[in-house]
C-alpha cells in the first residue's frame, strides 16, 4: 500500500483527510473526505500531493487499493517490484534454446580421428616400461593411468591419490591394522561421505547399499586376494597373453605390468637395451635422491638390475605437472543438449 507522507507544514486537518484517502474507507468516511477536499482550494491539494514523497514500501500487495470509477479514491497502485524469474519461466525460453543449440553444435569427432603417427615420439621414462606414444596427451594418459598413484609396496596402480592413500593405509600400515581391531577405520570410498567401518566387509555393504556401487567394484579388493597377485608376478613374461582374457573377467585390481604395454612386440628386442640403460640411470637417481620410504625397494632394484622386473621405488609427487598450463585452445566440445 502506498502511503503518502505530507510535509510538516501541513495542517492536521489536511493531513487527516489525506490519510483517509489511502485507506479502504467506508461510505461515511468518503463523505468526510469529499467535504474536506471541496473546502480546500484545488491548487493547495495539488501542492500538498506535489510535496509528498513516496515511501519505499516493501512489496506485499500493491493492488490493495481498488480502483474506483468515481475517482475519489486514489486508484494508482504502482510500486516498484523486484521480479524473480524461475529457470523455467517463459522469458528464458529463447536464451535456453540458444544454449541448447550451442551444446549440440559443438560436438566434433574429428579430434580423435587423427591418423596415428607412424613414428613414435615419446617413450615412457619409467624403468621397465617400454610403451611409446605419438602424442603428449597419450603419454600423459598412460602415465596417469598406470604410473601415477602407484603403491610402492605392491606396485598396484590406483586411480587417484585418495584411493592410493586408503590402499596404503589398509594394506601396508601396521598401525592401521592395530587400530582397526578396536575402532572403525575403514573409510567409505565415496568422497564426501566420511563414514568409517570396522571391517572392509561392512564398508563394502555400505558401498553397495547406500552408494549403489557394483558388488564387484574393482578398486575395493580385500587383502586376502593379495596372495593370488603374488604368484602371478612370476609369470610376467606370459602376462602379455594372460592379460587379454583376464580383462574380461579380471578381479579388477589394476596390476601394473608395463612390459605388456608395447603393442609392437617385434620392437621388444631393441627396446630392451634402451630400457636397461634407463634402468641404470634411474637406479642411480633413486640411490642419490634417497627416497626414505622406499630405500629397501630401491636398493633391491639396484642390485637386481633385471630389466624385465619393473621397479617403482618412488611415489610421484603431486607437484609433477603434465599439460597444466599448456596452451590447448578450445577443444571440440562433447556436450549433448538436455
Amino acid at each position, binding site marked *: 500500500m502506498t502511503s503518502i507522507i505530507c510535509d510538516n507544514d501541513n495542517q492536521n486537518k489536511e493531513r487527516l483527510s489525506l490519510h483517509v484517502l489511502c485507506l479502504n474507507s467506508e461510505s461515511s468516511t468518503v463523505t468526510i473526505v469529499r467535504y474536506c477536499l471541496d473546502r480546500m482550494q*484545488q491548487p493547495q491539494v*495539488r501542492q500538498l*500531493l*506535489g510535496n509528498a*514523497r*513516496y515511501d*519505499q514500501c516493501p512489496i506485499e500487495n500493491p493492488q490493495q487499493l481498488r*480502483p*474506483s*470509477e468515481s*475517482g475519489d479514491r486514489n*486508484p*494508482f497502485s*504502482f*510500486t*516498484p*517490484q*523486484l*521480479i*524473480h*524469474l*524461475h*529457470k523455467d519461466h517463459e*522469458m*528464458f525460453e*529463447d*536464451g535456453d534454446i540458444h*544454449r541448447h543449440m*550451442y551444446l549440440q553444435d559443438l*560436438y566434433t569427432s574429428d579430434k*580423435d580421428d587423427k591418423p596415428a603417427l607412424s613414428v613414435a615420439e615419446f617413450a615412457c621414462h619409467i624403468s621397465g616400461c617400454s610403451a611409446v606414444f605419438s602424442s603428449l*596427451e*597419450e603419454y*600423459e*594418459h598412460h602415465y*596417469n*593411468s*598406470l604410473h*601415477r*598413484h602407484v603403491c610402492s609396496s605392491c606396485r598396484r596402480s590406483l*586411480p*587417484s591419490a585418495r584411493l592410493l592413500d586408503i590402499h596404503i593405509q589398509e594394506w601396508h600400515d601396521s598401525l592401521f591394522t592395530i587400530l582397526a581391531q578396536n575402532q572403525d577405520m575403514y573409510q567409505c570410498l*565415496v*568422497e*564426501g561421505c566420511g563414514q568409517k567401518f570396522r571391517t572392509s566387509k561392512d564398508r563394502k555393504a555400505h558401498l553397495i547399499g547406500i*552408494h*549403489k*556401487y557394483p558388488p564387484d567394484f574393482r*578398486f575395493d579388493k580385500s587383502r586376502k586376494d593379495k596372495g593370488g597377485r603374488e604368484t602371478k608376478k612370476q609369470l610376467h613374461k606370459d602376462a602379455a597373453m594372460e592379460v*587379454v582374457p583376464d*580383462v*574380461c573377467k579380471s578381479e*579388477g585390481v589394476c596390476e*601394473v605390468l608395463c612390459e605388456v604395454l608395447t*603393442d609392437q*612386440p617385434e620392437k621388444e628386442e631393441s627396446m630392451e637395451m634402451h630400457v636397461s640403460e634407463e634402468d641404470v640411470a634411474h637406479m642411480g637417481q633413486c640411490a642419490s635422491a634417497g627416497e626414505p620410504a622406499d630405500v629397501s625397494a630401491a636398493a633391491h632394484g639396484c642390485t637386481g638390475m633385471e630389466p624385465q622386473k619393473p621397479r617403482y621405488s618412488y611415489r610421484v609427487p603431486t607437484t609433477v605437472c603434465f*599439460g597444466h598450463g599448456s596452451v590447448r585452445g*578450445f577443444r571440440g566440445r*562433447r556436450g*549433448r543438449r538436455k
Partner: protein
Amino acid sequence: MDTASEGQGVVDVFHKIHHSGPDREAHMKVLSKALRDPSAQLTFIKLENSMHLLVGLLTGSDARCRLQAARCLHELSRSPHRDVAPACLPATSYLLTYLSGQSTRFTELCLYTLGNLCPDSEVVQQKLLAQGIIPALASCMEIQRHNPAVVEAVGFTLSQLLQTNDAAVKVIPTVLASSLPAQLLSVLAPDPNFALAPAIESAWCLHYLTSSSRDNKELLSRGALLRCSSLLVSLGGAEGNKEEGLELLVCPLLRCVGNLLCCCPVEELNTAVADPQLVICLCALLQTYLQTQPALARESAWVLNNLTAHSNTFCSALLTFNLVSGMIHLLPFSQGINTLILRVLANIAHKKKDFCVQLAQLGLLSALCATLKMADQEMVTLSLDVLFMLVVSAPQVAEEFVQQGGVSLLEAIQYNSKGEMRGRATYLLEHHLLSQ
C-alpha cells in the same frame, strides 16, 4: 550404410574385441566410431556381456583401451534412445572414481559421458547422486582447476545435473554446501587465466542455482553478485566487442544478476554491485541486442528493473549517465520490452519528485501520449500510473501534458472496457487536469 549392416558391424567388432590380443585397441576405435549410430547403440547394449566387457576394459591395465572404452561409453551416452542410458549404469561408479585422477582427456570424456547420462533417466540421476557425483565434481574441479577444458567439462556436467527435476531438493542443497559455488565463481574472475568456454558453463550453473530458488543468501555471501556484475560490465562495456559466443556468457550472467538482486537488501546493494556503470552496460546491451536478439534485450531490461526498484543510487545513475532518452525511444517497441522499460522509468519516477521533473524534461510525456494509445492493456495501465506520478510532481508537468493534447487521450480512455483504466483516467482528469 544401412542399419542392418551397421548392426552386424557392431556385433562383429564386439566379438573381435572379446577375443583379441594386441589389436584390441584398433578394434575398439572401430567400435567407438560405429557407436555413433543410434541403431548400433541399441544393438550393442542388447549383446550379452557387452557392458561387462566395456567396464572391464575401462578399468583394465591397458591405458589405451581404457581411453577407447571411455570413448565408446561417451558415444553411448549421446544416444537418443531412452534404454541406453540405464544400460551404462555399471560404468558410472568407475567414471566417478576417475574424476579424481590426473589424465585430462580421459577425465573430460568421463565428465561428458556423465553429463549426457543425467537428463533423461531418473534412475540414473538417483544412482549418480548416491554414488557421490557432487563431491566427485568438486574434487575434480579442484584438482584440474588449471585446465580450462576439464573445468568446462565439469561445468557442463554440473549444469546438466542442476536442471533435473527435483534438483532444487535433491541436488542444490548439496552443491551449495560443497566447494563448487566458490570454484564456479573463481572461473568468472577476470584474471589472466580467464577462458570463455569454462566461464560459459560456470555461469549457466550459477544461473540454474539462482533461478531455482528465491533464497540465494549463500551465493550472495560469497560475492556472487559482485563477481557476475563486474564481469558483465567488462564484457558489455566494450562497444565493438562482438566476439562470437559472447552472448552465451552474457545471457546467464544477466540472469544471475537479475535474480540475485531479488534477495540483496537495498542497503547492501552499493557494495554488492560496486560499479554504477552497470547501468551503462545494461543499456548498451539493450540497444545492441534489440534487433538481433530481442530476448536478450528483454532480459537486460528486466535486470534494470530489479536494479532500480529500490535504489536511489541506480535511478540517479540512469539520469546522470544520460541513458533515459535512449530508453524513452524504446517505448514504441513491443515484444514485452516496452513494459519492462516503462517499469524502469516508473521506478525512477517513484523515487523523487525531482526525478519526475527530469523525466518530463527528457520527453517522457510525449512518449506517454503515444503509449496511452496502445492496445496493450498492461502498457496503458502502467502509462497511466507513470503519468500520475509525473503530473503530481510539479504543476508545470500537468500543464505541459494538457498542452500536448493529453486531455483528449484520457477522455478516450474513459470509454475503455477496463474499469482499471477508466478509473485512472477519470481520477487524473477530475483531480489534476481539468480543475485548473
